[in-house]
């Protein structure tokens, strides 16, 4: 009985979950606690919900301001709502106002009445209570631009709904959620047993106040896509906190002894603080019956045969099904016009095969949560390269287009050299030159030159003509990513040795997001599971004088905490194909990355490309690399080095930065505050448990959950919207709003000006110049600096980074200069080229400018007069900033 009481209290915190400080209204809370205890013991969901609402009404009526009371007393709306049990009753304004007012507590600048009146105004007669709830959330979310705290309000309102949904299924605590999941066949036996054996400790670990860490978009994403749902009812069976603990438990069942619970709880605590998040597949699948937790799969080119190609389709479908992103090379498939010996016909080349792949990828739906996605890599010497570059065009023959596939160039150094020299470039049919794809560096160069001398090529083109075509594809589609074969191989830890038969180990491609680089062949499908540190969470966490500094000590601790969890995924993971399992167990690669670099700079007040920012960015990556290696030596001490350790560059004493040079050709010196010598000794002594440790993924979705800027990217805009499967959401730069509020500059005119300028604040004279500098967007930061920063960081990234580049209006000249610089900087890969639409949509809610004609005498001058009705509506809408009343 005592344990039940404990759990009950925990649960009550969740249900209420809205007051971090409990200085007021203690009595009311006790009343509610009573109500909820009833809920738990009798399991009558709707009654208790009613009771809770009733309590809120009584409570808040006493604290309402006069304005609020007047408005709510204004009389019946004539609207009705349909309750869960089907009963129709009049809309109770008080209930709506009170629910919103409660959730607004402690949120500066939030006006609950404004949300309530707007919600009611948009209501349709007879709507369900659920629709009413949804509407109030969307209304709050719609005000985020005026005041970022509305995001927190929307998030809290949503948290209440999620909580209700879980409670209504008689799930009062964590272990019950796991039990329901297990009984409906979603949660694994191992996790069920683990939780069952440790229920009291695990239930007690839940901290529902952590729900308050979410911004609205983050919680919405978690609710829409990450929380486990009952297979038939489709209701979520876990709260956000249960979800984090479920993920933690899924990665703790293999640990021996009592420390397992302790580890799980600590890992839960880390994730729920949003300071670190594993990648989406881990969040989706950890602890479930389909524990496929890896983000990326890299498949070698199919062999040049019908069987080989169809086997690849099957592999890709299997890997894609459980949320893995696919990279696949197509280097080995014969080109157009090549002889097919079996039938004495001529091949149609790679395009028809990629069309089939396109359809196959689109058909695989990753558990309804997102569509399958794949990127095809092709070496720049392949004779079908020109057709390949047209795959994403939106003009021409649609029978030769693949709208679902991403495409990437796998570019040898020799090609870039010939572009520079303006020489000819030879294109080969892999059927006649099958060896080229398994070579890199000097060996590739001599094999290429000799094939050229023998006249084995299909045709020759000016290298610049092909390069120009590549640039055009980037500008037109954002696709056709430039990834560089030779640096990718020469700076890869896995290419330090040869296979048993003496053949070289070769990286043949990168992955869907160009941050993973691992060797592949017909028996090895490379796999990587990822996680990302949310860097903003490490600013100002230190004590005293260091309060605004970046907390490197905490960063180091967390890196050492999470590497074992990434490593563990390798053993627990479900592998859809034997090649993936084989490769992953041999190499044990993981990809620890980061997100929110921009948040760090905003918090520190650094311009993105300032010397301070550049220095900090490289130092952060050096620290992550150092501690990740250290953690891997600790794992090696316990479990032994990974099987192929002897064939790695690390085994020869070469770390990633030893393989890089500075722009002036010097060796790279890692930060001296870290003890690299001791680390090297440890590696020599114990080996490494993981062949690769660092990869910076785009973090699109998990950055949303964490509420931070993606990956290593500058902000794309101070004001933008996110378009996702769960709808559109406005995003405003909170840091900027706070700065402008402090200067008294955040007003409707400012919002309108920023909207007009597509989220830029450059040239808005009222804003101080230093702020304009700090709050530039990705379009306004010189891309040369982004590339240089990526290279400086790259010396501490043993795989690669998803580096998007931005150019408002691309031209072939600008692009060719930029990508040449990227290559010369030693970057292994680049990702999307982002450009912007040539023409803009007319603003429907901001005053039109630009092309709109104005009559002689300039813009129309609005003389504002207000009728009584308007004044009233206005004061209801926003009493604090009512222009009619001043």
């Amino acid at each position, binding site marked *: 009985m005592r344990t039940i009481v404990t759990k009950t209290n925990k649960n009550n915190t969740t249900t209420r979950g809205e007051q971090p400080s409990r200085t007021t209204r203690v009595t009311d809370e006790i009343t509610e606690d009573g109500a909820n205890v009833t809920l738990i013991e009798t399991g009558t969901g709707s009654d208790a919900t009613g009771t809770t609402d009733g309590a809120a009404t009584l409570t808040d009526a006493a604290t309402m301001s006069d304005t609020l009371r007047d408005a709510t007393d204004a009389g019946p709306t004539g609207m009705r709502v349909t309750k869960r049990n089907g009963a129709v009753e009049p809309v109770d304004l008080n209930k709506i106002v009170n629910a919103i007012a409660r959730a607004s507590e402690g949120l500066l600048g939030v006006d609950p009445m404004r949300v309530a009146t707007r919600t009611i105004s*948009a209501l349709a007669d007879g709507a369900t209570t659920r629709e009413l709830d949804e509407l109030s959330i969307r209304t709050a979310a719609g005000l985020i631009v005026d005041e970022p705290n509305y995001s927190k309000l929307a998030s809290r309102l949503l948290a209440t709904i999620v909580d209700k949904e879980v409670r209504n299924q008689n799930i009062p605590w964590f272990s019950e959620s796991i039990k329901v999941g297990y009984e409906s066949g979603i949660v694994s036996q191992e996790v069920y047993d683990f939780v069952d054996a440790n229920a009291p400790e695990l239930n007690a670990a839940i901290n529902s106040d952590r729900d308050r860490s979410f911004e609205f978009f983050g919680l919405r994403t978690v609710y829409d896509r990450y929380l486990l749902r009952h297979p038939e009812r489709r209701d979520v069976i876990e709260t956000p906190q249960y979800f984090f603990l479920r993920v933690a438990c899924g990665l703790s069942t293999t640990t021996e002894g009592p420390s397992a619970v302790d580890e799980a709880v600590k890992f839960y605590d880390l994730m729920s603080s949003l300071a670190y998040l594993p990648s989406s597949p881990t969040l989706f699948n950890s602890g479930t019956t389909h524990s496929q937790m890896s983000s990326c799969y890299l498949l070698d080119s199919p062999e040049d045969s019908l069987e080989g190609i169809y086997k690849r389709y099957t592999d890709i479908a299997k890997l894609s099904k459980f949320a893995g992103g696919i990279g696949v090379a197509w280097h080995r498939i014969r080109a157009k016009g090549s002889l097919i010996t079996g039938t004495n016909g001529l091949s149609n080349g790679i395009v028809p095969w990629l069309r089939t792949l396109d359809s196959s990828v689109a058909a695989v739906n990753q558990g309804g949560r997102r569509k399958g996605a794949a990127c095809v890599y092709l070496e720049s010497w392949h004779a079908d390269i020109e057709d390949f570059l047209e795959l994403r065009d939106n003009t021409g023959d649609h029978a030769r287009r693949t709208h679902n596939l991403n495409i990437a160039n796998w570019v040898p150094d020799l090609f870039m050299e010939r572009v520079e020299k303006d020489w000819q470039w030879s294109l080969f049919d892999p059927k006649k030159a099958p060896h080229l794809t398994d070579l890199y560096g000097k060996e590739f160069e001599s094999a290429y030159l000799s094939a050229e001398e023998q006249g084995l090529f299909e045709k020759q083109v000016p290298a610049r003509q092909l390069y120009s075509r590549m640039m055009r594809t980037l500008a037109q589609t954002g696709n056709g990513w430039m990834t560089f074969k030779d640096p990718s191989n020469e700076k890869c830890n896995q290419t330090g040795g040869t296979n048993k038969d003496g053949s070289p180990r070769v990286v043949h491609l990168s992955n869907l997001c160009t941050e993973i680089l691992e060797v592949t062949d017909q028996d090895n499908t490379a796999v990587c599971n990822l996680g990302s540190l949310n860097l903003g969470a490490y600013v100002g966490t230190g004590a005293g004088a260091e309060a605004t500094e970046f907390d490197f000590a905490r960063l180091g601790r967390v890196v050492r905490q999470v590497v074992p969890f990434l490593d563990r995924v390798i053993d627990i993971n479900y592998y859809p194909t034997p090649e993936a399992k084989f490769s992953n167990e041999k190499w044990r690669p993981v990809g620890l990355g980061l997100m929110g670099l921009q948040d760090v700079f905003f918090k520190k007040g650094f311009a993105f490309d300032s010397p301070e920012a550049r220095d900090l960015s490289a130092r952060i990556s050096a620290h992550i690399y150092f501690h990740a290696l250290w953690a891997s030596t600790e794992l090696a001490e316990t479990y032994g080095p990974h099987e192929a350790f002897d064939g790695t560059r690390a085994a020869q004493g070469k770390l990633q930065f030893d393989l890089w040079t500075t722009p002036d050709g010097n060796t790279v010196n890692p930060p001296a505050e870290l003890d690299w010598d001791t680390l090297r000794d440890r590696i020599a002594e114990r080996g490494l448990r993981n062949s690769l440790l660092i990869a910076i993924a785009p973090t699109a979705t998990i950055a949303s959950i964490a509420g931070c800027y993606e990956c290593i990217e500058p902000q794309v805009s101070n004001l933008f919207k996110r378009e996702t499967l769960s709808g559109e959401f406005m995003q405003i730069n909170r840091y900027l709003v706070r700065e402008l509020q402090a200067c008294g500059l955040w007003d409707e005119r400012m919002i309108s000006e920023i909207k007009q300028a597509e989220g830029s604040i450059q040239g808005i004279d009222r804003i101080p110049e230093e702020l304009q500098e700090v709050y530039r967007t990705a379009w306004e930061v010189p891309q040369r600096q982004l590339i240089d920063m990526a290279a400086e960081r790259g010396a501490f990234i043993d795989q690669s980074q998803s580096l998007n580049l931005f150019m408002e209006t691309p031209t072939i*000249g600008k692009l060719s*200069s930029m990508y040449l610089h990227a290559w010369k900087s030693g970057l292994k890969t680049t990702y999307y080229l982002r450009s912007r639409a040539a023409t803009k949509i007319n*603003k429907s809610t901001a005053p039109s400018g630009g092309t709109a004609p104005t009559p002689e005498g300039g813009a129309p001058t609005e003389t504002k007069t207000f009728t009584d009705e308007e004044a009233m509506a206005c004061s209801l809408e926003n009493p604090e900033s009512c222009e009619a009343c001043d």
Partner: protein
Amino acid sequence: MALIDPIYTDDSRGVDTELHSLNTTVPVGDARPKHILDPGFDLTLRPMRYPQFFDMYKDAIKNTWTVDEIDFSDDLVDLDRKLMPAEKHLVSRLVAFFATGDSIVANNLVLNLYKHINAPEARMFLSRQLYEEALHVQFYLTLLDNYIPDMAEREAAFAAVENIPSIKAKAEFCFKWMDSVDTLEAITTQEERRRFVMNLICFATCIEGLFFFAAFAYVYFLRSKGLLNGLADGTNWVFRDESCHMNFALEVVETVRKEEPDLFDERMEADIRAMMHDAVDCEHLFAADVLGEGVPGMSLKDTREYLEYVADTRLHLLGYQSEFGSKNPFSFMELQDVQGLSNFFERTVSSYQTGISGDVSFDEDF
């Protein structure tokens, strides 16, 4: 020879007499219309009288998209499982309107506008616009074919303009303003030009600028809830195109205003205001039908306010003061004003350019 461009057309600048003497068939001074609405078929692009129209044409080319790029597969799942009956009704009305709306605009363009806007660069834009209207028709055709599997039901949707009173009323509004000019072979008198300008303003601000913008609001409402992404993706592109069409038409109006300021008298303003009222009422009637089954999040009251708000912004664009003084009640429309950020797991990115120029070089700034 007649096609060769005279260097100077305006007498005040002086005519090149040598060139003049060579050109015997067409008198140089008369070769080019003085005003954009002067009747005729000017074929001369240099010197260009209205380079802004040519720029608009080039920008439009850069935003080429095709229906094949749009993925409707999620929409069908949404229609099947996620939409409430009231929302389904909304969608069926909406698509029925779209299916005919763009065709009407295209017809007006060919039959009434092209004939009288006498500048080759402006006609280039109109030709491009015509293609875009056809593309929109194709988009909504594909949409209807996908959304309505039942043949009889599909036929009924395409016949919406006959069967559905609220759509019929909108079409009649359009036809009324088309009829006002379709008998004009050439617009020479001030009165004829007035009629023409009213037609132009009507199609830009009431039909494309209000009927379509209202329709977009329904789509964006659904999208703000994460529904019908295929419809929203295509509509996003249509929206972008329509924005350009409206801007073009307003630029023509502005050109006429500069050239013939007398046309824009008080009577014109009063007529435009009356026309706006008609349009808002007409669209309100449609909204009452579309929202008839009660759509939470879009009340008829808010929609009326939105229509009035849009109408006011159109009046502002024409240089007039507000007629209604309404505020925008739809925060989801604000979402349409800001730059979107898509990632490949989710939706098609709609902002890439198709026009791209230049040569390989290594010393440009980036």
